[in-house]
């Protein structure tokens, strides 16, 4: 249906692979290669022992020149592993890499039909017939080049943001930090000591801050926030508002490091801010050494691992231990009792820290989720699991270990970046295991507690991880974007009525209406899934390399029309 198809004659070359005995052992590849010869538009066939080997590839290149082939089909293993290899090979032979089709006659044929060699042979022949039919309809595609602006924006000036920014700026990329507050440091500014090595928080974060201050090509913009983001990977235009005046930054990648917030403890165990405080309110007291209490009781999982916040905030146990040890250090006679459900001190140094606290005389009492400690004016009643009886512990200072929660303004930032949030409001990464610091949308990365409450070490490593992921694209002037994307071709423009069903169905917001009100696909964002073409009400959109014609030709080849 497309106009551009060049009129010269289609000549398909089919290369049947033995893959040693994996294929050749089950079906007769030589006979297959000969039989395939008389399929329509097939100009040359050949079988070889290992098509993916050096001489296999050389054979293909030779055949392409000699027989003036303009389509190549390789029947062997799975395209998932070998398609890039063969695309590379035929492009070296001067053919557009997309004029190649892969037929899987090993993993999905000979290996799985060993006991039925004749049917396997028929199946292989059918698959090659389908592959050749599709090859005839293939059209040359060029990879879409997107030029990258080698600059990065880091949102959030906490320790995660600073680490990422330092790493990127040292690699020579122009980097901006946008921080909501009037100074860098984030949560660390309010802490006294840092576990497990009891380093002074202010001193630690101070070092990082002045690294940031005298780093080249790193600009810090405080008390400012992001109000609009346009564009796509490599070409973002970010508008920020620094108390009143609007600035426009042009960057190639964005790192989200906005961290998390403290839970508002109102209503938890009778919190009053004087006698019953949180760990974070305890820190400054320890810093200035004004602690008069004699009996200190700490309650773990205060407000977390319940229905409202069904997650563990991972840092509260270590914070409690740190503060407990600091108290003991100030005055060993102060009794400290920690009521806990489970103590999370993973790793070697954390477990050691826990043993150290026990040695200093900190008492640990386990309570059960169903029977929460009952806090009265100056004593706590708690059912001790180990002795199976209720204990009464007097206190003159109650410290609650409250969890970290997602920032309330995550939703607005997510909207701007068009990225999803998970159930508790933290940012949702592309894949929990394989792409922990990427977003599904290319060009946007994440690190630190913005994704999930983590301790300082984890935060810093995630900062660096996000920076390195960003540098994978910033390091190129241009990057190749998936070539087989969807497109509204010129010859179909009259079919499109502008109903916008495609815009609404695209998971990547990769389709928009340009200024003269026509549908346009943002090639850089399109992943080529084909949802829009399958949904288009008037069949105007076309998915390149998987067009309706190509798939239908495969069906006809098999159906026997």
């Amino acid at each position, binding site marked *: 249906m497309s106009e551009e198809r060049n009129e010269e004659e289609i000549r398909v070359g089919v290369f049947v692979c033995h893959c040693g005995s994996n294929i050749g052992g089950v079906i007769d590849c030589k006979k297959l290669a000969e039989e395939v010869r008389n399929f329509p538009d097939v100009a040359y066939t050949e079988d070889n022992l290992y098509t993916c080997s050096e001489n296999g590839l050389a054979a293909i290149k030779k055949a392409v020149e000699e027989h003036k082939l303009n389509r190549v089909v390789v029947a062997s293993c799975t395209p998932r592993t070998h398609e890039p290899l063969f695309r590379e090979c035929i492009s070296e032979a001067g053919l557009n890499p997309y004029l190649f089709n892969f037929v899987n006659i090993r993993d999905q044929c000979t290996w*799985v039909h060993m006991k039925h060699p004749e049917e396997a042979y028929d199946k292989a022949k059918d698959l090659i017939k389908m592959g050749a039919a599709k090859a005839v309809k293939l059209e040359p595609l060029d990879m879409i080049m997107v030029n990258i602006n080698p600059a990065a924006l880091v949102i959030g000036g906490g320790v995660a943001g600073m680490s990422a920014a330092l790493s990127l700026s040292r690699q020579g990329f122009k980097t901006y930090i946008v921080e909501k507050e009037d100074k860098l440091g984030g949560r660390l500014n309010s802490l006294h000591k840092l576990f497990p090595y009891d380093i002074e928080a202010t001193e630690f974060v101070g070092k990082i801050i002045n690294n940031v201050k005298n780093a080249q090509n790193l600009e810090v913009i405080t008390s400012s926030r992001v109000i609009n983001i346009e564009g796509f990977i490599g070409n973002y235009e970010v508008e920020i508002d620094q108390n009143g005046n609007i600035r426009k930054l042009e960057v190639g990648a964005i790192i989200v490091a906005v961290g998390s917030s403290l839970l508002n403890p109102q209503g938890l165990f009778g919190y009053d801010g004087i006698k019953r405080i949180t760990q974070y309110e305890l820190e400054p007291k320890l810093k200035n050494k004004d602690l008069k209490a004699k009996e200190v009781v700490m309650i773990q999982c205060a407000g977390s691992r319940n229905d409202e916040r069904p997650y563990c905030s991972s840092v509260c146990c270590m914070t409690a231990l740190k503060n407990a040890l600091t108290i003991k250090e100030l005055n060993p006679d102060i009794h400290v009792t920690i009521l806990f459900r489970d103590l999370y001190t993973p790793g070697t140094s954390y477990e050691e820290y826990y043993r150290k606290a026990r040695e200093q005389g900190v008492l640990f009492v386990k309570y059960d989720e169903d029977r929460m400690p009952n806090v009265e004016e100056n004593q706590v009643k708690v059912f001790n699991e180990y002795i199976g009886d209720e204990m009464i512990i007097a206190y003159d200072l109650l410290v609650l270990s409250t969890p970290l929660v997602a920032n309330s303004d995550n939703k607005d930032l997510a909207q701007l970046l068009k990225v999803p949030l998970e159930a508790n409001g933290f940012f949702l990464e592309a894949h929990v295991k394989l792409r922990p610091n990427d977003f599904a949308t290319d060009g946007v990365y994440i690190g630190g507690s913005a994704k999930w409450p983590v301790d300082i070490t984890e935060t810093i490593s995630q900062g660096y991880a996000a920076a390195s992921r960003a540098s994978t694209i910033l390091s190129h002037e241009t990057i190749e974007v998936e070539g*087989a994307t969807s497109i509204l071709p010129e010859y179909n423009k009259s079919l499109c009525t502008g109903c916008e*069903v495609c815009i*609404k169905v695209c998971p990547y917001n990769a389709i928009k209406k340009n200024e003269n009100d026509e549908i346009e696909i943002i090639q850089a964002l399109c992943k080529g899934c*084909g949802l829009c*073409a399958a949904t288009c*009400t008037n069949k105007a959109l076309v998915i390149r390399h*998987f067009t309706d014609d190509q798939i239908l030709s495969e*069906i006809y080849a098999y*159906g026997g029309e």
Partner: protein
Amino acid sequence: MRMEENRVSFEPKLLGFLCNWCSYAGADLAGVSRIQYPPNMRVIRVMCSGRVDPEFVIQALELGIDGVYVMGCHIGDCHYLDGNYEAIRKFDMTKKFLSFVGLDNRIRLDWVSASEGVRFGEVVSKFVEDIKALGPSPLSGDTPDQELLEKVKAIREAVSSNRMRALVGRQRKITEEENVYGEKVPEEEFDVLMDQAIKEEYDRHRILLALEKDSKSVKDLGIELNLDPSIVLEHTLTLKSRSQVDFQKIIGNTPIFMRI
């Protein structure tokens, strides 16, 4: 040749659409683990199960293929986030259309993840057995059932009419998220509308095909398509208002319609 074979030795011709990231990978894993399953199914690789256009499924059945299997990632796993959600909606609509001609049990939709090599073998085997039990498709072989072929052709055209594609294209967002008024349309309410549209478009495209052969009256159409003539009249006049059909002449007291 196929017709005389008795039920046991009949080898169904099956077509599979496998999504590149999960089910195709599952199939490869079955290969790598040398899991054996019957060789009846030929596979077409697509990037996502959401890409499978209902027209492909019906075109395959029309060519006499005995069964079509569409496979995608498990819900929530889709590489493209919600491709398989759309696949469900398209598959349900296709199944409802095919239920008019009793071919709905020859298509199947399933989820196979990249790590389920064993399961891939099992589901394919099960599919081959089920189709074997059904016997060859009435449209397969050299003498396909002509009347049924006409109906399946009509279904293929109805399925790609812009009305059906608009409804199925917007169904998920409107019933699961929200429509333009910010309201969620209840699933059953949308189904009633969808079923009505499916029945209407099916009848209308059968009428269009019948008229394409030659001009006929409403009564002849009623007999040929065994539909109540009053419904045929309603549809024919709707098609006329969309200038797809027009009056040709009047014989006695009966107007004859023709395709434009």
